[in-house]
């Protein structure tokens, strides 16, 4: 039996899906978290008779007339796949808005079971809904559910009702008989919508009783007035991100990392003593420095990342991140992006791939492609070890480094959007309407689940891609082209060094013209964590976290000396890795969402240019401030940067010219018609 979960965005579909299937799909207290359908089987304890129940979680939709592509996924699935039963999830705190979609679903003839979700929140808000009366009026079973609760949540009753509805031969009756939206003209469709609204309003008046609590409304509204304030919104966001980075990278994170790295050290030392002196040095180095050291250097940052993800999950669950979208909308609208663009970017702070995929909620093709191009600029989870390493080595774990990377990313996104708008000559605007979820006390359980699932993903990545890459890097730096072991005092003769050196020359104006940094930047395109792993292998540092000194990078001065670059160059290298193209997997996601090779190659060129220019500016200006002189390679670097800017300006002018020509053609066409 195929059961579809359908309902408005942010009514709790994925939370209910997770609760009845035992899966841990990503949830968030905002609309638009799910953009593709997901499948799972109902848990044994909810399905004691072991019925064949496959549940499909669909993206949120407001109606059967789709506006965005994820709403199309929902509509297409329901109409083409014809599930045996639809669980229509209705937000009890917003009954009148939710029931519009319900009336459309009821007309399809598919058995419907309504899950009156978030009924605990409704109760707290003083809303009472007469379930029997609602069930009678809608002509379908209505079950009260609280999908966030472990017990007494109405889920066994819901599944029972679903099985009964699925086995019954009775065709679903519709309380309101209007022709499906598909067959109607625009005018008729509007008339039908009006009838639906009238029906829903009358129904809600009958079944719902509200005890208005002006005080409660005022607290929520007052909080929103401050948090989404046009001047206060940004400083509040900065303070929140700073606090998150302080907790994850200065307070709790290093403390946990310290313990964790102790275990990695123990493993390293145990294996080293097990091997003893008898092992071949090349093989010993491959296992100890390449695999255990390289993977360990990346894994060492896991506690910091877990704490960060835990904090971000709490923020998402509290409803704050939805407010960030509102704060950013003001700026994004001005540069030709949609307010919806902020959602993929927030999702992208976890991983760029789902972030890029979330761009499909944007209808305008230019805005969607621009957002897919700019979303990878947001520092994702994979980039966090790189941020933590360079913040620790060069800036003593200061939380402002991580925070400023987020704000630099926002600035780069705004500048990027302006440039792309000018190049494409598309000045179309769109308006962003988002239903703000209510603030709530974030769930520790949900945040913990989110944190552990991301940690698991991080460990899998370290044990697969990172492990293989580090082994390859270790082999390439151990041998020369004659496959002879490289002499200890001549590492530049290795295969890796000879491959990376030509690239390193290009990085001289950026302050990190060493082959080790060039090699790490290249392996970073496979997975960004590789930057840390490759630096560990090439500089022979098995551990970036000093356990004895109880600090993230206690021996930062020591590692700083090993790296042999200035703080300005370190910051430039960090910026380069954050603002050049993302990993190959994210590039693949960009390719599918952009649906245009021209846009994809344009995006990669743009990202490379952006990373190079920013790193050049950071290094040269930073060196000028700290050393009172310009950095090495300023002249050639300036020529390269001027060439990049020249190309961008040319493309922007060309875009404006094309725009002028097309508007002239439009004017002429208009005159001819007259």
């Amino acid at each position, binding site marked *: 039996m195929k059961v579809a979960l359908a309902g408005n965005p942010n009514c709790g579909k994925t939370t209910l899906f997770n609760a009845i299937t035992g*899966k*841990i*799909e*990503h949830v968030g207290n905002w609309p638009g978290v799910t*953009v*593709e*359908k*997901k*499948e*799972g089987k109902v848990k044994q304890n909810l399905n004691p008779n072991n019925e064949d129940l496959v549940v499909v979680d669909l993206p949120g939709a407001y109606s059967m007339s789709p506006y965005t592509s994820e709403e199309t996924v929902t509509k297409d699935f329901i109409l083409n796949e014809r599930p045996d039963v639809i669980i229509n999830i209705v937000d009890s705190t917003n009954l009148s808005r939710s029931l519009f979609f319900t009336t459309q679903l009821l007309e399809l003839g598919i058995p419907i079971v309504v899950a009156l979700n978030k009924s605990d929140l409704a109760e707290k808000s003083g809303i009472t809904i007469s379930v029997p009366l609602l069930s009678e009026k809608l002509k379908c079973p209505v079950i009260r559910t609280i999908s966030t609760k472990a017990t007494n949540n109405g889920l066994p009753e819901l599944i029972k009702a679903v099985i009964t509805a699925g086995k019954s031969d009775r065709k679903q009756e519709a309380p309101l008989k209007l022709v499906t939206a598909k067959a109607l003209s625009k005018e008729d469709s509007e008339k039908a919508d009006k009838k639906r609204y009238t029906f829903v309003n009358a129904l809600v008046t009958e079944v719902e009783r509200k005890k208005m609590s002006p005080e409660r409304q005022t607290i929520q509204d007052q909080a929103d007035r401050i948090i989404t304030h046009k001047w206060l919104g940004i400083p509040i966001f900065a303070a929140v991100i700073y606090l998150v980075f302080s907790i994850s990278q200065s307070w709790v994170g290093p403390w946990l990392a310290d313990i964790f790295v102790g275990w990695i050290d123990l493993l390293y030392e145990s294996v080293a003593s097990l*091997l*003893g002196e*008898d*092992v*071949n040095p090349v*093989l*010993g180095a*491959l*296992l100890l420095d390449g*695999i255990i050291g390289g993977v360990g250097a990346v894994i060492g940052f896991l506690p910091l990342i877990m704490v960060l993800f835990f904090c971000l999950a709490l923020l998402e669950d509290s409803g704050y991140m939805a407010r960030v979208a509102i704060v950013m909308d003001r700026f994004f609208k001005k540069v030709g992006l949609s307010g919806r663009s902020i959602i993929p970017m927030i999702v992208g702070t*976890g*991983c760029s*791939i*789902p972030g890029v*995929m979330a761009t499909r909620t944007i209808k305008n093709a230019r805005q969607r492609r621009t957002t897919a191009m700019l979303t990878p600029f947001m520092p994702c*989870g*994979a980039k966090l070890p790189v941020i933590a390493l360079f913040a620790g080595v060069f800036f003593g774990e200061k939380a402002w480094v991580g925070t400023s990377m987020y704000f630099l990313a926002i600035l780069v996104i705004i500048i990027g959007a302006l440039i792309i708008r000018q190049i494409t000559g598309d000045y179309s605007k769109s308006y962003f309407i988002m239903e703000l979820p209510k603030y709530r006390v974030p769930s520790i359980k949900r945040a913990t689940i*989110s944190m552990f*699932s*991301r940690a*698991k*993903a*991080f*460990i*899998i*990545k370290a*044990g*697969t*891609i990172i*492990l*293989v890459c580090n*082994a390859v890097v270790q082999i390439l730096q151990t041998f020369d082209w004659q496959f002879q072991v490289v002499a200890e005092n001549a590492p530049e003769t290795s295969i890796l060094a000879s491959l990376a050196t030509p690239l390193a020359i290009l990085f001289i104006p950026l302050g990190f013209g060493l082959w080790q940094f060039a090699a790490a930047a290249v392996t970073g395109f496979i997975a960004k964590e590789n930057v840390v792993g490759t630096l560990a292998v090439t500089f022979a540092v098995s551990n970036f976290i000093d356990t004895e000194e109880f600090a993230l990078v206690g021996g930062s001065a020591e590692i700083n000396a090993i790296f042999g670059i200035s703080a300005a160059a370190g910051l430039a290298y960090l910026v380069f890795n954050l603002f050049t193209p993302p*990993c190959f*997997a*994210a590039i*693949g*996601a960009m390719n*599918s969402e952009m649906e245009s090779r021209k846009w994809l190659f344009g995006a990669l060129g743009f990202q490379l240019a952006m990373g190079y220019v920013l790193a050049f500016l950071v290094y040269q200006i930073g060196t000028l401030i700290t050393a009172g002189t310009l950095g090495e390679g300023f002249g050639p670097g300036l020529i390269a940067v001027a060439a990049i800017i020249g190309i961008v300006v040319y493309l922007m002018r060309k875009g404006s010219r094309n725009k002028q020509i097309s508007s002239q053609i439009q004017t002429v066409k208009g005159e001819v018609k007259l």
Partner: protein
Amino acid sequence: MNTIDFVVIGVVVALIALAVYKIVRDKKRGARCCGCSACCEQSEKSGCFDKASQ
């Protein structure tokens, strides 16, 4: 080459083989990335998998 060398080679080859096996298996299943985010490991029908494989 002594026994320990062979043991080390065996361990390294096994680790790399397992890692490559996991990468290839995920790729064949249509995974876009290897454990990039919470969704990847959970479901083949999740968004982290190519539409073609669904």
